[in-house]
């Protein structure tokens, strides 16, 4: 069952219409015509790093980067296939050499023109390992990456240092003229154009290369998107304004955007209800309980789904979890519908497929292990030889996972008679450190939000041997072979076809168990008459009308 983003947009539009009607009675200032000079205050959190696209991996800064930059391609709000934005055309004959032509006459916020070389320089900067960019490995597809990006021979903790790279530019990147550049990949990759909308691939203005990156990102980040940076007061406020020379798509219809940086979601929610805040992306858990948010917000609330899935992953390197039958038994013992209804009050949908169904190329309902079938589960457990000892489900206690992890553990305990419980690890850092070091002694929570909309992003990193997020060390040569074939397929269709086969193999092994698909409940103030959310549930700032 594919959840359509379109359907939710339509509901949102009708809600907006209702707001226009009721807007008069509340004695709003001005008339009902869309104002073009207003300002809005939206909810945000302090970005972890200075605003440099290739050094931002978290949503606090990611959201602002998405507004301030426009990439070669963009992902439509309805979750459909990516389309060209800054790119005039992206051509290839073999999925290996791509010729990218960009639109002429677009500008950075400092007035300089966006040229092909701004892309090439930005990518080379991020891929040069001594610069330490968090997103550096995103360029691994490109030929010559292994010369600019050296890895530490004994890991980051070891005493040896990584050798200095032999080149500071990737050989696969070539500027042809001001509007054209050519990208040669190390191996054919059908999904490469899709990746280009991710923030790591944004262009950087010439001035970036003349200053320290943190200075650029803190005091005057310059992008090429519809929104321009004004000021940033730490932990308090980021001020943004409209970029009047933006000519790629619609300009912003409001003039100023203040991103108020909150520490606590309940505080932001209280502000939203009191009309002090114009938009909040995710209402807090306390408002979801008992569907309070619906009565609190009425027309101003909206529910949508995002392409993210919550998993529980198995540490397959632990012998006790090496048997696929045991893993399937645990999966079948979890009543996802009940968790969705009782813990999430219906705001999260029970997972029934491996890749999130909102992702292009994903097959809905292909997870046969996601059913609730305690009888089969018991049989499988017996066949697997039972489970001795305590099965501890781990989660990080610094964010809201306790309730659903407790419920999962309780269901496993009740349905399988395993001595199961859930335990919180104090911080995400410690949690991830144990996972990275392969030291987990029980199943643990994981979540995956796609970086770019393609099923490839749900298979290669998660289920292929040595995949970047295959933390449980799952390895199946058949899956590897199929995924490799899929990645190198000449067309996206052929690629999706082959990935579906790989997922069927994954389904037999149950290396992790999908539990629920993320949903998102947002709210806006009475002031906003119309707004849309983008493909990952962030506010589409250019769509806001007052």
């Amino acid at each position, binding site marked *: 069952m594919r959840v359509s983003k379109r359907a939710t947009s339509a509901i949102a539009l009708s809600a907006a219409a209702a707001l226009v009607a009721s807007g008069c009675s509340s004695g709003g200032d001005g008339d009902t015509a869309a104002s073009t000079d207003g300002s809005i205050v939206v909810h945000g959190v302090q970005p972890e790093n200075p605003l440099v696209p290739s050094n931002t*991996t978290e949503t606090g800064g990611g959201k602002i980067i998405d507004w301030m930059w426009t990439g070669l391609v963009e992902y439509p709000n309805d979750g459909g296939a990516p389309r060209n934005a800054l790119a005039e055309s992206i051509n290839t004959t073999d999925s290996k050499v791509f010729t990218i032509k960009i639109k002429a006459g677009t500008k950075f916020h400092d007035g300089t023109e966006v040229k092909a070389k701004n892309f090439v320089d930005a990518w080379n900067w991020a891929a040069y390992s001594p610069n330490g960019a968090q997103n550096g490995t995103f360029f691994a597809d490109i030929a010559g990456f292994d010369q600019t990006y050296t890895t530490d021979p004994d890991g980051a903790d070891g005493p040896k240092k990584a050798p200095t790279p032999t080149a500071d530019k990737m050989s696969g990147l070539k500027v042809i003229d001001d509007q054209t550049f050519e990208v040669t990949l190390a191996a054919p990759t059908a999904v490469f154009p899709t990746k280009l909308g991710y923030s790591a691939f944004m262009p950087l203005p010439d001035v970036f290369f003349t200053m320290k990156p943190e200075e650029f990102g803190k005091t005057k980040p310059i992008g090429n998107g519809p929104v321009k940076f004004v000021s940033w007061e730490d932990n308090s406020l980021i001020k943004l304004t409209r970029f009047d020379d933006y000519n790629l798509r619609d300009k912003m219809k409001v003039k100023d955007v203040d991103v108020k940086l909150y520490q606590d979601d309940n505080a932001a929610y209280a502000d939203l209800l009191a009309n002090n805040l114009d938009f909040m992306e995710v209402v807090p858990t306390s408002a979801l309980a008992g569907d309070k948010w619906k009565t609190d917000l009425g027309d101003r609330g909206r529910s949508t789904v995002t392409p993210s899935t919550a998993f529980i992953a198995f540490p397959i390197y632990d012998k006790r979890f090496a048997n696929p039958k045991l893993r399937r038994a645990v999966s079948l013992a979890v009543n996802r519908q009940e968790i969705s209804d009782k813990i999430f009050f219906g705001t999260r949908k029970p997972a029934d497929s491996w890749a999130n169904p909102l992702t292009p190329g994903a097959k809905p309902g292909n997870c046969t292990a996601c059913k609730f079938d305690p009888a089969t589960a018991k049989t499988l457990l017996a066949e697997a030889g039972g489970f001795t000892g305590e099965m501890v489900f781990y989660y990080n206690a610094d964010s809201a996972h306790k309730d659903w992890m407790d419920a999962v553990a309780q269901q496993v305990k009740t349905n399988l008679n395993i001595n199961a419980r859930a335990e919180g690890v104090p911080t*995400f850092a410690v949690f*991830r450190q144990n996972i990275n070091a392969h030291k987990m002694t029980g199943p643990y929570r994981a979540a995956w939000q796609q970086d770019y909309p393609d099923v490839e992003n749900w298979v290669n990193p998660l289920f292929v041997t040595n995949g970047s997020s295959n933390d449980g060390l799952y390895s199946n040569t058949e899956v590897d072979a199929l995924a490799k074939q899929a990645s190198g397929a000449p067309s996206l269709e052929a690629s999706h076809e082959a990935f579906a086969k790989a997922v069927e193999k994954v389904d037999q092994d149950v290396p992790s168990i999908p539990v629920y698909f993320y949903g998102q409940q947002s709210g806006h103030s009475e002031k906003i008459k119309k707004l849309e959310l983008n493909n990952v549930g962030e506010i589409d700032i250019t769509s806001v009308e007052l």
Partner: protein
Amino acid sequence: MGRYLLRRLLQLVPVFIGTTFLIYWLVWAVPGDPFAGKCGERRCPDQYIAFMTEKYHLDQNVFVQYANYMKNLLQGDFGQTFSQREISDIILTSYPNTLKLAVVALAIEAIIGLGAGVLSGLRRNGFLDNLVLVSTLFLIALPVFVVGFVLQWLLGVQWGIIKPTVSSEMRWSELIVPGFVLGSASVAYIARVARTSIAENRRADYVRTAIAKGLPMRRVVGVHLLRNSLIPVVTLLGTDLGALMGGAIVTEGIFGINGIGRQVFRAIITKESATVVGIVVVLVLVYLVMNLLVDLLYAALDPRIRYE
């Protein structure tokens, strides 16, 4: 007295070094790799970790790190956070906010606590006494997040009397409710201490004399009783300022105040020793100076206490 003061001031130095080192070492000892969780569900590139490790000298042992830190600190350089932000900026923006909140909390604590303490101290074991006891204890027993959440919800959202969160200008009027929430737990202590003190002095000779002289009760309480009973309360309030500043994490979060509590907590879990120490250093100074003042105050107020 002068020599005593000098000696105490000299003693501040080892305490200052001891405290900062202890904190630095504790944060250093927090388990977890500071960069393990930086890149979400994906492992950070080794190169990024190596880059950060070198930049912040995290490969050195803790003594060298601490020595480096102190050397910079003495030159007025507080260092940078892992997000490459100047720690001195953070201190300059968030300290005044926390101080403001703590002062409001202290004022509220003093007014309510003292009022309740005097009332219950004068009528011990009466209805009022018990009422004060139960209500202040209720505030102690209820966790701050519950008190804060309920007040914010009722006053801010349901009845619309206040704005639910404090604006970045930090107006005094906006701080009354957050101040009450922060000070609520201490109100009981103040009330109890004031009550005990009043009750004891109530039986003192000079109070009996004053009553016997036929002075009006208001004058007895206001001039004779209160002034002599205030000393323990004032010393308690004085040292509470530091505790309030260090303990405002939850309150600041609920009311969206950009204070130090949040910064310290975030820095602890991300193992940013420099940030934690930088912020706590100032707190420690407040503690130390307050303690010294209180000790001096004893000698000044009570001739029976002598420092040789």
